[in-house]
């Protein structure tokens, strides 16, 4: 019983401090923290730049055509084998291994950017 009371008191302590300090600024802080944990890692701009660089440096691609919105096969005249090569090159650039199921879906700069930006291990 004494133990239970001690435990309960212990648990209540952090809750009280949280509500005390968090009465106003708390929602903002949690919002910021969410962003900062992503910032430690890779910014969206950085992902976009590096994805575009990889695609532009692909031998069969005309670099002047590459924008974040291009579709590899429809807009850049690549075939599905080139598509595999580009996704593999992106894997190396960001030190990832993309499983087949996901890799098959990545057929445009946009999808590549989204996938990599949301990948916790992208570096």
């Amino acid at each position, binding site marked *: 019983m004494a133990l239970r009371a001690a435990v309960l008191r212990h648990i209540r302590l952090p809750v009280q401090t949280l509500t005390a300090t968090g009465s106003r600024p708390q929602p903002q802080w949690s919002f910021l923290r969410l962003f900062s944990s992503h910032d430690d890692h890779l910014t969206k701009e950085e992902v976009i730049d590096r994805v575009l660089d990889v695609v532009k440096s692909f031998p069969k691609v005309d670099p002047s055509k590459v924008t974040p919105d291009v*579709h590899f*096969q*429809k807009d850049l005249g690549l*075939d*599905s*084998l*080139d*598509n*595999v*090569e580009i996704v*593999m090159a992106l894997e*190396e650039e960001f030190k990832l291994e993309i499983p*087949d199921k996901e*890799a*098959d879906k990545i*057929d445009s700069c946009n999808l590549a950017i989204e996938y990599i930006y949301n990948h916790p291990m992208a570096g």
Partner: protein
Amino acid sequence: MAASKGQKLSGMQKQVLSLYRGFLRAARSKPAEERRQIESIVSAEFRQNSKQVDRKNFLYIEYLLRRGKKQLDQLKSPDTIGLSSVNVSSSKKQNADT
């Protein structure tokens, strides 16, 4: 078996692309010189077949897939550095093609 231009992939195309990916991954684990060589041979082979093999010739494509998987297993072995095994079978395959 023309390399597809953006339409939805069939199951068989997915298998081919997955095999291609497998080869490129295996090539990564080899020394730089061999890696380049493997990549160029594998890429040439897949592209040649994508042009020459009728996309409806399922039996033959299945055969190529099975053979490719065996070659990939050989290539994955750390003892395999160069491409002699792939070379031998790709010349065999040219015989099969003619």
